[in-house]
């Protein structure tokens, strides 16, 4: 299995609270991605990174920010969580932008 972990695995928080999700890889892959997965919407790209400090928006980036200060870590921040951000969040990595390896997911509930 690709060395990719996500933390926390489960989180319950309240509306308006800041939340940071962490993705850590041990594969030294160039690309890292954050997705959310909701029933009826499939996997939707939030943000991605193509190198240290190089990030770009995906299709559902509003309300989210990311940072990548090291190759191995990609952080997703919800500055002020809303109930619409309740979802399962997946991190993925890719060596060349093709095949992606996914983490185990983080279940976030915003009350």
């Amino acid at each position, binding site marked *: 299995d690709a060395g990719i972990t996500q933390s926390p695995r489960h989180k319950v928080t309240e509306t308006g609270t800041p939340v940071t999700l962490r993705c850590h890889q041990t594969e030294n892959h160039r690309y890292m*991605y954050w997705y959310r997965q909701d029933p009826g919407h499939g996997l939707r790209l939030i943000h991605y990174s*193509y190198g240290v400090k190089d990030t770009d928006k*995906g299709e559902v980036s509003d309300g989210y920010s990311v940072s990548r200060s090291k190759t191995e870590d990609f952080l997703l921040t919800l500055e002020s969580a809303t109930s619409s951000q309740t979802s399962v969040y997946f991190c993925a990595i890719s060596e060349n932008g093709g095949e992606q390896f996914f983490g185990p997911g983080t279940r976030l509930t915003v009350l």
Partner: protein
Amino acid sequence: QKEVEQDPGPLSVPEGAIVSLNCTYSNSAFQYFMWYRQYSRKGPELLMYTYSSGNKEDGRFTAQVDKSSKYISLFIRDSQPSDSATYLCAIPDAGKSTFGDGTTLTVKP
């Protein structure tokens, strides 16, 4: 129009059936096509990928691409209960992948 459209399902078949999962795409420039499998409460994992047109076979699984009609298919022969999962087609382009919404398959013993 979404770049990748996938037959929504869900699909329920008896064990041993042949399963066909399908996607269409809009950009004729796409060259690589992938299928991921996602078990319940797990992350997706790559099942197969193909380049350009034609068929690719891996055991009971066959991936097929028809670029003239912009249609991709995944066939599962002799389906097993362990094949019960959600299958997502995906097309990588410019460092990102566009995923279909997934088809949930249940194979009943």
